[in-house]
């Protein structure tokens, strides 16, 4: 890609509007070369001469390790499937929450890009391509989500049973009949398809604009990205809430919680930030992202820390209000979890709140790769368990009304296998997309801002 004069011109005007831009008068006097020399970012940052050619290439070892992870995960998952062949609810719910967990990581990346684009964020340009590659998992994960929902919804969602809304039937459920305007099969499937298509489209448009920018500076692209980001944020605010009702809250259709959407979103957003930290730290040690400093990592660490606390706030608020008011239709959710998964409830809380709070609170911890990466892995695992306890207990309790006794199974080979497979798949898609573009969007107006970033 070419480093353009107009790119530098615009970059200087956008980044440093308070400095009078002299070359406005110069071009006619001395020609473009002077402007190019004076305002070329390369002259200010000689390091950029190297970085704009930097492009990720996966080594054979990396590809092999990802493949091993996927195969091991698949084998474990298959063993788990055969062990639980009589319990399809568990299999499909495990697939559902793992699929959505990884889709959520990609969604978090898309939201992060959109929010920073909209908020004139410049510091993240250094690792923007990493976030883009994460967000491009959306189409893949979205299709998998559709497959799981289309094939497995009969085993996950209790309210799909048509006899529940039929007044003549002995199973007639007045509450579900009242909710049937929203919770019915065609509308439900239509919504899921809409989410997946729209999210993927937004991620793809943001990526397309970013790649177009590599050809030369174009102010219109930046404006266009701002529109896309704005529409995405509005759409996402509604759709992520509705997706969390559809996919997880409707597993226990009588139960409802008004902060469920936030709670879900923050759970995968903090996971997404931890994944970003881990991937950036890995790429940094591999030599890509050479100019990403402790300052950038510190800020990602702040997101991990801050949103861990935000998650706790919502997790606890939901619990406390239900515990305090003690109304049967609300306490159902916690009754199942408290009776059958008490350790999981508290362990999730410790992993997702106490550990990040006490360890990530210091400045040094956020800047130390070993500490922060360990904490990142803990947060990812903790929120994966959180997704388990959002979905599995309710599905097992509701779907086993057909006569036989409910077997509340914990986290086993099945869940771990599917999780390994999805990590492998996510990394596979991620590295492929990362290798498809240079590591730095050099013509982005805020490149300089990212280089001089200082917390």
């Amino acid at each position: 890609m070419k480093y353009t004069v107009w790119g530098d011109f615009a970059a200087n005007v956008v980044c440093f509007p308070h400095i009078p831009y002299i070359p406005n008068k110069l071009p006619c006097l001395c020609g473009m070369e002077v402007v190019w020399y004076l305002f070329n970012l390369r002259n200010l940052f000689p390091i950029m001469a190297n970085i704009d050619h930097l492009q990720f290439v996966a080594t054979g070892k990396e590809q092999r390790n990802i493949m091993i992870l996927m195969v091991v995960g698949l084998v474990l998952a298959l063993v788990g499937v055969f062990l639980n062949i009589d319990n399809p609810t568990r299999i499909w719910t495990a697939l559902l929450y793992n699929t959505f967990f990884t889709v959520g990581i990609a969604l978090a990346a898309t939201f992060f890009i959109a929010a920073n684009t909209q908020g004139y964020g410049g510091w993240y340009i250094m690792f923007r391509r990493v976030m883009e590659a994460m967000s491009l998992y959306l189409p893949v994960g979205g299709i998998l989500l559709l497959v799981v929902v289309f094939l497995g919804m009969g085993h996950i969602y209790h309210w799909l049973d048509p006899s529940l809304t039929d007044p003549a039937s002995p199973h007639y459920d007045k509450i579900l009949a009242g909710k049937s305007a929203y919770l019915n099969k065609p509308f439900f499937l239509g919504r899921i398809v809409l989410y997946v298509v729209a999210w993927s489209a937004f991620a793809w448009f943001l990526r397309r604009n970013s790649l177009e920018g590599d050809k030369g500076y174009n102010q219109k692209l930046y404006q266009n990205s701002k529109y896309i980001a704005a529409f995405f944020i509005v759409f996402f605010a509604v759709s992520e809430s509705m997706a969390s009702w559809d996919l997880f809250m409707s597993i226990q259709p009588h139960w409802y919680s008004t902060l469920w959407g936030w709670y879900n979103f923050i759970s995968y957003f903090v996971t997404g930030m931890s994944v970003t930290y881990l991937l950036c730290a890995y790429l940094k040690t591999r030599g890509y992202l050479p100019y990403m400093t402790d300052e950038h990592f510190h800020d990602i660490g702040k997101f991990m820390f801050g949103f861990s606390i935000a998650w706790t706030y919502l997790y606890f608020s939901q619990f406390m209000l239900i515990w305090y008011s003690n109304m049967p239709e609300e306490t159902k959710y916690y009754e199942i979890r408290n009776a059958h998964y008490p350790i999981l409830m508290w362990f999730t809380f410790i992993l997702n709140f106490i550990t990040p709070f006490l360890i990530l609170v210091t400045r040094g911890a956020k800047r130390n790769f070993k500490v922060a990466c360990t904490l990142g892995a803990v947060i990812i695992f903790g929120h994966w368990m959180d997704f388990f306890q959002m979905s599995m207990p309710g599905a097992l309790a509701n779907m086993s009304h057909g006569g036989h006794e409910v077997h509340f199974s914990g986290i086993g080979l099945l869940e771990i296998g599917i999780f390994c497979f999805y990590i492998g798949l996510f990394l596979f898609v991620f590295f492929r997309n990362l290798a498809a573009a240079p590591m730095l969007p050099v013509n982005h107006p805020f490149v300089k801002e990212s280089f001089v970033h200082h917390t």
Partner: protein
Amino acid sequence: MKHKYIVGIYDDDDKLVDAVKRFAQEGYRVHECYTPFPVHGLDIAMNLQDTRLHTAGFVYGATGTLTAVITMTLIQVMDWPLIVGGKPFFALPSFVPITFELTVLFAAVGMTVTYYLRNGFSIFKPVEIVDRRTTDCKFALVMCCKQYNKDDEQQAIRQLMRETGAEEVNDRLLNNELLPNLYKHGDEHAHAAHH
């Protein structure tokens, strides 16, 4: 008693940071800088110690947490137990919001008071500003004449200020002594080498 300071006025933050670095190179200790906005890298150039205010904040916060839990336990469990909605007397989840509020209150008030005390702000103390223009567009570098009390030292400081681009070099007499900063360990050696 009046305290004498030499004040160099700069018109640019980069010039100020460069001047501070230059002073450190020559073995001087810069007493204080006044700027209209926070200048990145100035704390590093001045070799200032990291603030300990956040540690104090943690201690205040922990005090607030303990105060809340102990007070509520004393009132609601030991002194006057009441059954509310069939909950146990020591109903921890319902204590959490109040505990949180008191933690925040103690941390916020404690940190503010500490900050004011440490910086010598008080409503009873007349305000002395080294140079009024530092609240608008100028940057001041302040050297303490108590530390550099010889005439030739002060002349050298004035000379160095002019060399590093100071617009003006003034002497200021203040009634209140400016509190000394905390410098990072190792600064004493550099300082000693000069003499």
